């Protein structure tokens, strides 16, 4: 049970856990341990996950990275059947506001409040983003969390979903957004994606290391995914994170 939970966290709420460091992580874990009854036991009506103001969703998505990057990025917004392109981009980056099923802790898996702005670079847009788009399609089609995990992992194994491209990374530097009730707001950070890489290779998760990482290599089901996170000192608008 514990292992399964960790695995699920690793896959679906990695951004949350990796980025927050031990203090936040401890809080998140404690919150999850205490809340045996999740406040979000099942999917809410789909309207609660949608943003009615498309302009607001575009702006929130773009806030994930400095404007110098996001102004020429493609922007995706959530529709009733999945994410759709709202703006075509020119620089290969793709900005999106992800929802709970790809970007929150298990306790918040069905939370309709979660809004996670991310800007993926081209390599991640080609390799990591398709997994999250597929997961979203499955969730909106009524699949359970477990069914979705199995389907994504199987698609990775069958190479229907690609392995991580070299240099895949994303920006998560928005001052806005909502990470979930467990951890509401995250510090600005960058994430880097690799297919099945030992976190120790980067010196991650060691005392004093500025790099946090999580791998689902030993979990089941597995996406063979390792994610690294590095906190940065400023938000996307250039103001300092204090």
């Amino acid at each position, binding site marked *: 049970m514990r292992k399964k939970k960790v695995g699920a966290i690793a896959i679906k709420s990695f951004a949350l856990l990796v980025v927050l460091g031990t203090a936040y992580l401890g809080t998140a874990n404690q919150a999850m341990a205490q809340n045996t009854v999740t406040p979000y036991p099942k999917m809410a009506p789909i309207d609660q996950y949608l943003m009615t103001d498309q302009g607001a969703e575009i702006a929130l998505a773009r806030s994930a990275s400095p404007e110098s990057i996001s102004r020429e990025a493609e922007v995706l917004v959530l529709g009733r059947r999945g994410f759709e392109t709202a703006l075509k981009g020119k620089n290969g980056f793709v900005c999106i506001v992800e929802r709970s099923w790809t970007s929150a802790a298990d306790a918040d898996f069905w939370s309709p409040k979660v809004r996670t702005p991310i800007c993926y*670079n081209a390599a991640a847009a080609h390799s990591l983003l398709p997994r999250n788009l597929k997961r979203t399609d499955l969730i909106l089609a009524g699949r359970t969390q477990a069914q979705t995990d199995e389907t994504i992992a199987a698609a990775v194994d069958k190479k229907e979903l690609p392995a991580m491209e070299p240099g895949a990374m994303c920006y998560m530097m928005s001052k806005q957004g909502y990470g979930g009730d467990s951890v509401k707001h995250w510090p600005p950070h960058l994430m880097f994606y690799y297919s099945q890489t030992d976190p120790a*290779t980067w*010196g991650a998760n060691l005392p004093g290391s500025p790099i946090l990482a999580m791998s689902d290599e030993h979990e089941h089901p597995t996406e063979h995914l390792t994610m690294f996170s590095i906190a940065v000192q400023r938000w996307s608008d250039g103001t300092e994170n204090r």
Partner: protein
Amino acid sequence: MTRNQIHSIFLSALVLVAALIATRPAAAQDPKQPYPTMAPVEQYLMDHDAEIALARSAAPDAISHDASVIVLTRHGYETAVEGKNGWVCWVGRGWMAMFDHPEFWNPKVRAADCLNPPAARSVLPYAYKRTELLLAGHSKPEVIAAIKAAIDKKELPPLEPGAVDYMMSKGSYLTDSGNHNGPHLMFYQTAKDGAAWGANLTNSPILAVNYWYISAEAYPQLESFPPLSVFLIGVDKWSDGTPAPSM
């Protein structure tokens, strides 16, 4: 420490900064070359134990404690400590900067690095080669030609994915500019510029430079080298855990 100072540091450490190129295009053309030639080799050498300690300070002890350490001698780098975790810590000198860098021969530069295993296997051999040839008295064009020949003959390896370099030492001297130092991580990528990571753009926390040159004007033969960029991300603590100045 201002952002401009950080840029200067990055450029001057074996490192970087296209951003600086944009704001200070004089780097390669500046007629004032403060270090036009190599200083006497003694000026680049250090006390053996002090060099080991400085090298290890590039990364948190949890990493560097079990790392190999190499130190500079009159003829090149030599292993001083055999490690157990695949990491290699060392103190780079000015000549690990781009070939046209104005502080290439600055004898004060002491850039402590800890390379992860992919970087130790695929970046360090270039440092060994460059250092040995320069200490043997070869000119920059000769060194460039020798490195190119070694690449072509596959005597030097291609860059491995995931090559990372910790530069978090409080004791480094990276440049004459600014505060001379700043903790950061470096990532090596086979990219011709920083665009793939959104580097060098306004408010981006990532800086990137070409590994080989600031401007190919001085050594145009470097343009035929395999693309190699160094990406830098500043961090907020030194390797000992104490807070660093805000960037």
